[in-house]
């Protein structure tokens, strides 16, 4: 069990020596990346929950979203807060750790222990920074496959994730169909839309416009582009919500005051909330990681790897899919999920799809959503019966 009284970990240290299990790979197992680089020395940080059965048939890989990490269902050592998906993953939860062996790994390009721009480049002894090779969703999945190999697991019972995690789920199903028994891509898309690339670019430009970014060398120079990264996070955070959710939570209510101050203070509660979101984010996340991982999402276009025909990515698949979207999610709208479902139907795949009613926007997949839990329980339960576990 985690010690909640323990002091908080230093995020810089976590990038190289995380408070997690770590699988380290050398030149005999390089990470071959889409950009053409082979990483000779790399590592992947991960957490596991539950017990792997003797047949090694009950493993579920959870893939995290843009700013997530491997701490899906246990205390995050940097923030001291609980895991990011405790509503879904845990004892007796829809992804039940009493029954399944749950694995969650930090993505390549991330900053919580898997090799990324904040990690030390073994050739220079300095942080990689912008010398780190560009990362794709497929690179993230390749790295996870090496981890699954190292754990001696041939077939994953399920690969699950939302948003960028859902992109990894789709990539797993396309790249390693024989190793994925079931797949649960939530609130996601088979390609990143122009609007979403545009939002990401605003975030990246905010980081790079901060003079403390120092051309990406801020770790060496002892500065932090906190203002830029904070603005990036504030902008992005709006896209994870919805107008009804913002209205319900804040409306036009003022923050600790009776009347507007006729200044640029955070008069409105929604401003105060966003500023807090930005500030707390920069304490746990590396700015260059934010650049790399958003870029990986931008580059994601599963159909493009298959002659522009998404159905070809899933040709002959035996994986069972369950796709879900949320009515108020305008970042990854239902039409994105329907495109996945149509491709899976065209490929003759076994697929369930449901658009769930929620006014919480894109973030709904992370929150208390009884319909999502019921759907997940039903899907995983029937898949487990088919798998004989």
């Amino acid at each position, binding site marked *: 069990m985690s010690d909640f009284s323990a002091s908080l970990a230093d995020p810089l240290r976590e990038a190289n020596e995380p408070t997690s299990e770590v699988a380290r790979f050398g030149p005999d197992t390089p990470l071959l990346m889409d950009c053409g680089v082979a990483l000779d020395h790399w590592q992947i940080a991960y957490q596991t929950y539950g017990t792997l059965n003797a047949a090694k048939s009950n493993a579920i890989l959870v893939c995290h979203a843009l700013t997530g990490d491997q701490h899906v269902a246990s205390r995050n050592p940097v923030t001291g807060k609980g895991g990011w998906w405790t509503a879904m993953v845990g004892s007796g939860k829809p992804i039940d750790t009493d029954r399944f062996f749950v694995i969650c790994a930090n993505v390549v390009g991330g900053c919580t222990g898997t090799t990324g721009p904040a990690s030390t480049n073994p050739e220079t002894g300095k942080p990689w920074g912008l010398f780190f090779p560009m990362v794709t969703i497929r690179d993230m999945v390749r790295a996870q496959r090496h981890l699954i190999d190292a754990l001696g697991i041939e077939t994953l019972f399920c690969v699950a994730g939302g948003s960028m995690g859902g992109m990894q789920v789709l990539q797993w199903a396309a790249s390693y169909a024989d190793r994925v028994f079931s797949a649960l891509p939530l609130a996601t898309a088979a390609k990143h839309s122009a609007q979403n690339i545009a939002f990401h670019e605003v975030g990246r430009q905010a980081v790079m416009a901060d003079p403390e970014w120092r051309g990406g060398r801020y770790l060496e120079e002892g500065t932090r582009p906190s203002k830029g990264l904070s603005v990036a996070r504030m902008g992005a955070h709006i896209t994870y919500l919805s107008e009804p959710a913002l209205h319900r939570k804040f409306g036009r209510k003022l923050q600790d005051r009776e009347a507007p101050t006729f200044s640029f203070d955070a008069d409105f509660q929604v401003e105060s909330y966003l500023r807090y979101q930005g500030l707390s984010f920069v304490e746990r996340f590396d700015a260059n990681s934010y650049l790399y991982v958003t870029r990986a999402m931008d580059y994601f276009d599963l159909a493009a790897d298959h002659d522009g025909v998404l159905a070809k990515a899933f040709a002959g698949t035996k994986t*069972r899919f369950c796709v879900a979207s949320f009515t108020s999610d305008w970042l990854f709208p239902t039409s994105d999920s329907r495109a996945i479902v*149509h491709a899976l139907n065209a490929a003759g795949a*076994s*697929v369930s799809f*449901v658009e*769930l009613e929620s006014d919480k926007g894109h973030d709904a997949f992370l929150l208390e959503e009884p319909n999502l839990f*019921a*759907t997940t329980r*039903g899907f995983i339960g029937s898949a487990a019966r088919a798998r004989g576990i």
Partner: protein
Amino acid sequence: MTLPDLHTNRIDLKLVAEMVTPGSRVLDVGCGDGALLALLAETRDVDARGIELSREGVAGCVARGLSVIQGDADTDLTEYPDDAFDYVILSQTIQATRNPRFVLEQMLRIGRRAIISFPNFGHWRMRGQVFFMGRMPVTDSLPYDWWDTPNIHFCTIRDFVTLCDAVGAVKERAVALDAAGGRVGVSAPWWFWNLFGAQAVFLLKRG
């Protein structure tokens, strides 16, 4: 859409299930709460898939472990390749589609066989209500008033046979059920079925 009369409905589902070869691939279009899919999966060991319009229906189906997508018979059948299924079933739904002919053609394209069950608007009780009362029929199994019914394309058994001919479908089997769920005389002529069949089930294949 499922009929509220559970007794009659279950006989209808069993009849459909009997027409399905065990171990085959089946798509149930308009699968509702998944009753037929569950029956097929349990008794015929089929690879059962479903399409359902209502969000609640789909969520319920997926929660009970069925492979169902939220979709519309009128628009989403075009996404499937030719011969994707051994059977495509339309149970008590054709009267609620906007374009029954197009739906039937798509079913015959994506399935090697199509099974359609529907309420017969030519049944004597329907005719009686129109003839004697001058009102659109409302029955136990079709309880809607004309202004709130989801059933926008009613047909009789004779009408349906005309549609089968129009799309070049071959009738491999046809069964009519009376209001109590019993089979209407197997060798009876069409006009007899059309008068005494409360609902009908057709097994079709491409001509």
